[in-house]
């Protein structure tokens, strides 16, 4: 059933075809780099330039100090200081500012008299994510400012304290999360593109029938297409990882060797899916639509690249088990940031193995039917 010489012949044919096709070469080797560099720079969800308005009705020294504390924090820039609170509305409506701080007239006198002083933060809540973060920073600044006053003034007993420590991404930089995620997303896209190039084209030109009429077995065809693809994918993962580490300073704490196996499994699963889809659906339009639906958007939205899987509703969480990018993402982030290995990541590897075995079996079966 599986003859190494025949298998090698298919592999060589694929490699030859690939080498001659400049477009495929560019797609396979240049595109991943371009995508990583481009999006690695462009996208971030660090919230570090919050435009704010300050309505200072107190105009005292304490109020100025509080505003200075915001300026000094480095994440806020005061772009407007309207005199009245009524002016905040238009500023928020037009998204000129994201946050407004209102310091009421009795702020300074309250503090001086030892009463609790009040300040108000009004935030544009439409982008809930950014708003939540902006509020968290605001709280921290106000609290720290208040704490400073307490320490400078009366003898204060330190309260119960929650000491927070962040692991894996100590400086809380979003690129440490995004860049390893991009490696996965890019691999997913390249896998989809190459699948359609190597398989769909073969159907289109009718050479799949030719291939079928040779003594080569179905399994050999599938494996022969898979092997060169795995080699390319491995090179891509290596190159994008190195660029991620060197260019974007993402920590790489684990052993790079632990990425090899999961990369193979992930690519095998994706290619298997592509093979199965293109063999099942006869018209190309449908194949591409199914491919699009089943890989692209879900890969972005259901893999945990951006939206955490564990807060999704249960039925949706079940659905994410069908997306190999989900597992690969855990592996890549784990190896990059947590420095963990097979002892921790074996369930993901196992599920990817199951996925690959499933889709490849399906593809080999569907092949027979389609050609018969």
């Amino acid at each position: 059933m599986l003859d190494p010489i025949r298998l090698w012949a298919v592999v060589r044919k694929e490699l030859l075809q690939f080498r001659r096709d400049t477009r495929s070469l560019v797609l396979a080797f240049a595109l991943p780099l371009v995508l990583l560099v481009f999006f690695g720079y462009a996208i971030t969800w660090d919230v570090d330039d919050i435009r704010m308005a300050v309505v200072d009705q107190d105009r005292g020294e304490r109020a100025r100090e509080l505003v200075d504390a915001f300026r000094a924090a480095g994440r806020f820039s005061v772009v407007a200081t309207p005199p009245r609170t009524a002016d905040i509305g238009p500023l928020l409506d037009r998204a000129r500012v994201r946050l407004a701080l209102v310091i009421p007239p009795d702020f300074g006198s309250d503090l001086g008299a030892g009463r609790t002083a009040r300040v108000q933060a009004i935030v544009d809540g439409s982008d809930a994510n950014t708003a939540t973060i902006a509020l968290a920073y605001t709280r921290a600044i106000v609290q720290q400012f208040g704490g400073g006053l307490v320490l400078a003034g009366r003898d204060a007993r330190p309260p119960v304290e929650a000491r927070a420590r962040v692991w894996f991404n100590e400086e809380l930089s979003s690129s440490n999360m995004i860049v390893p995620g991009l490696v996965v997303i890019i691999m997913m896209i390249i896998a989809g593109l190459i699948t359609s190039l190597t398989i769909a084209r073969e159907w289109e030109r009718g050479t799949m029938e030719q291939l079928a009429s040779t003594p080569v077995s179905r399994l050999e065809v599938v494996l022969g297409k898979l092997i060169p693809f795995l080699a390319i994918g491995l090179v891509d993962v290596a190159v994008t990882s190195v660029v991620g580490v060197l260019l974007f300073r993402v920590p790489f704490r684990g052993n790079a060797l632990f990425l090899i196996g999961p990369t193979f499994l992930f690519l095998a699963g994706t290619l298997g899916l592509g093979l199965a889809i293109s063999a099942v659906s006869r018209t190309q339009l449908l194949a591409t639509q199914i491919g699009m639906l089943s890989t692209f958007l879900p890969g972005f939205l259901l893999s945990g690249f951006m939206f955490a899987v564990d807060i999704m509703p249960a039925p949706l969480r079940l659905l994410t088990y069908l997306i190999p990018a989900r597992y690969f993402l855990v592996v890549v982030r784990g190896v990059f940031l947590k420095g963990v290995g097979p002892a921790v990541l074996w369930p993901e590897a196992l599920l990817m193995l199951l996925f690959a075995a499933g889709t490849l079996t399906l593809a080999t079966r569907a092949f027979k039917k389609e050609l018969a």
Partner: protein
Amino acid sequence: MSRPEKLERVRGLVRKELLEVFRDPRLVRMVLVAPVIQLVIFGYAVSTDVRHTPTFVVDQDHSQTSRDLTETFFASGYFRLAGASDRPHDMVEALDHGRAIVGLHIPRGFAKDAAREAATVQVLLDGTNSNTATVAMDYAQRIVQAWAIRRGEAPTPPIELRERAWFNPALKSRDYNVPAVIGNVLMILSLMLTSLAVVRERELGTLEQLMVSPLTPGELIVGKTVPFALICMADLVVITLVALLWFHVPFQGSFALLLLAGVLYLVGTLGLGLLISTFSSTQQEAVLTSFLFIMPLMLLSGFMFPVSSMPVGFRWLTLANPVRHFLEIVRAIFLKGAGMSALWPQYLALALIGASVLVLAARRFHKTAA
């Protein structure tokens, strides 16, 4: 040529195109059912709220006080118990495995310390997702602080911060993201539909047939895009209704303005589909090229990653992205109820982008067809 005659020819083409779509049940499913399913699935997915964060507790104090603190912690709804143990090592393992994102460590002697002087609990956070970690850290510190104040173990802070969120008082991220999903679903659908429809005709050779018919290239373009514009507008209405009825996303603004934005937006995306078709000779190529457009259009739209956080160069680049402007419009219409006076720059940008893309596409279409 008389005007009615011209109109008649375009109508014929539009009818042919619509017939072609509605004759194929699979295609009907794709254009009418798939967007709804996509919206429902992705609508559930696109939440960045920090709620029920899996938390591992190591309580080495075993006191009434420590139990009280733990209970307060979980009563907040922000955290969910994912495991508990006596040994800090188990907490480390839970974080390594990703079973927990937060670890709460209450050391031995906590109750005694809290009664006398400074007491400390340790909060460990998996920082992989920097935003979740930032927000969870803030929640944890606030909960502990409020707890201490309630028990009289900490002085009331001298400054009280009152918070109000406008437009989205509960700060639900889904209300912000579902309208954005509408924009992206629509973009992908319109882009693929046009580029594939034109290229399919080219593959089948029927494009030449159309060329030799009395149709002018302009009429051909109109006839090719109008049916898809109609379908996509229908989709816009349907999925907006789904967003309102299923996800209960608030809708403050005007429906007419939303439709206007939809028309301008679709001119751009359909034009882009047409442009892609002029670069592609097979449907396969059309899909590949669409992919290359869809990814930057989506990532640089402000959908997941705020435009305001991008480097300056990229922020300029996003001005040419119709998705960015459309998302700003739909989000403002849904959540803020904004009108033309606030949104005219976005409408203007959409119109300009649509017009230039369409002109460019028409030119190239003319050349490749000739």
